[in-house]
């Protein structure tokens, strides 16, 4: 079930350079949300944008969900400026979710790709699964806030070494793999990172789940606008068959 719900902004916190966390009161959506799911938001009028914008759910509470958003355009810049109590028109939860995995998962978030990873890791922690690792990769330290309260410790990496390990996500993953191997990898981030993770997964034979981003028109599987190419030929829909795909099924 998906629903359209009008939700009040409970808080809108700037957490890093051009990055903010929105907490929105959405009891129905929160009740149904699973890690990997996303929602779509009607752009605020002042943004001038027409189509709803998709965002991964980064966490939930009893009656709210959280989002981690980077201001990169008209909608996201407008969202960044919204005050508490402003109402948003939200549809969700949409898409599939990460599969249940009983072993440990290494999770990699590139930029705002961290959102679904945060959600997945906190749900797994609550479920008693304790051996997960999280890597949050960014270009510089300005892009990466400290998130102390998260139930799973977060490792950081930056291209310039200004925070955490130096190097991109793929390099850090390779490094980690020299010492250990997880039961699965879950990753969400920019295209280049996903491509690299897919290759590493294939090389090391690790079950890997990628949460993809593609421009979406409907977000509910009605338009075939958000295609991802399959290794087996043809396409699937990121919004409906995904956004979470096994890395060996898709062409990046």
């Amino acid at each position, binding site marked *: 079930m998906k629903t359209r719900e009008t939700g009040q902004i409970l808080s809108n916190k700037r957490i890093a350079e051009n990055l903010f966390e929105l907490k929105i009161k959405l009891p129905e959506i929160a009740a149904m949300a699973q890690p990997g799911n996303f929602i779509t938001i009607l752009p605020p009028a002042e943004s001038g944008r*027409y189509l709803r914008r998709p965002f991964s759910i980064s966490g939930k509470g009893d009656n709210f969900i959280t989002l981690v958003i980077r201001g990169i355009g008209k909608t996201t810049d407008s969202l960044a400026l919204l005050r508490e109590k402003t109402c948003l028109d939200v*549809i969700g939860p949409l898409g599939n979710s990460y599969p249940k995995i009983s072993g440990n998962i290494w999770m990699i978030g590139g930029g705002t790709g961290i959102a679904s990873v945060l959600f997945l890791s906190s749900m797994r922690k609550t479920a008693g699964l304790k051996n997960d690792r999280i890597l949050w990769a960014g270009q510089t330290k300005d892009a990466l806030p400290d998130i102390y309260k998260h139930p799973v410790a977060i490792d950081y990496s930056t291209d310039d070494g200004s925070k955490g390990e130096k190097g991109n996500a793929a390099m850090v993953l390779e490094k980690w793999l020299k010492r250990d191997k997880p039961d699965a990898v879950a990753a969400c981030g920019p295209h280049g990172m996903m491509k690299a993770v897919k290759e590493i997964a294939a090389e090391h034979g690790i079950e890997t789940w990628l949460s993809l981003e*593609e421009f979406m028109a*409907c977000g509910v599987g009605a338009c*075939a606008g958000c295609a991802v190419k399959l290794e087996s030929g043809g*396409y699937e829909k990121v919004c409906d068959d995904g956004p979470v795909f096994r890395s060996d099924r898709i062409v990046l």
Partner: protein
Amino acid sequence: MMENDKNILAATLGTLNLKNPAIAASGTYGYGTEYSDFCPADDWGAVILKSVSEKPRDGNPPPRCCEVEGGMINSIGLANVGMEKFLSEKMQEFRKKHEKAVCIASIAGESLAEFEKLSERINESGKIDAVEINISCPNVSKGGMHFGSDPQSAAEVIASCRRNTSLPLLAKISPAAGSPVDVARACADSGADIIVAVNTIPGMKIDIEKGKPVLGNIFGGLSGPAIYPAALRIAFLIHRALPEIPLIGCGGIDSADTALQFIMAGCSAFQIGTATFRNPECLYTILDNIRIFMQKKGYKSVKDAVGIAAEY
């Protein structure tokens, strides 16, 4: 709502009777069940499913959509499951959920032969109330020129379909035709029962950061509010030239205001496409506001407003 209030919205398109004039546009409403949580098929006057071809089609390489001022561009490339699966799976699922909804199939061929087969199969299926001919398809035998770009090839398509089906035939006109009115006339003369004006306007967008077209297919079709003035003019001209043939407006409708503009231009019904993406419940707002407008202006029926602006 009183009984006569209900009738305010009823629409007639030749032999096709709709409970309201709002129709979900092909390609924006999937196979009729994707939006069931928001605007189920039963609440529309009719729904038109994704255009279907004989064989399954993968569609164009991504990206397939992008946003532009006042709307979007799409180059889905007629990705669809093909006629067999459409009838055996998609229509079954649809009818299981929405037994009584008025359902229009849209067919898209690359040759006259394909159109003939498609219309025949639809006709036999017994589950479909009418068929919309998407003539804005590349004609393989004419080097990819769209069937809808000139009156003669449009007429040939309609005639082929007409021979193979007794269902009401809707001909959906492309705004890119040199003379959409001549194409509409040719379609009417070849057996189309209803004209739909219009499909998307060809357009493109370039990503200046990458220095290349945004869409995998380079070109796509522009839809959304940006196109309504152009679409409205074509509907108006078709109604003026062919006042007898039932007309459906389409292009950028996302409010009662724009819907009523098409009605007043001569459309007995209208399609909603891109607006559903933005607000999957816009159908209800639009219908409510049309009803309120009709009552305020003292119209007993939307039908009485059809074409009133066309005398000018």
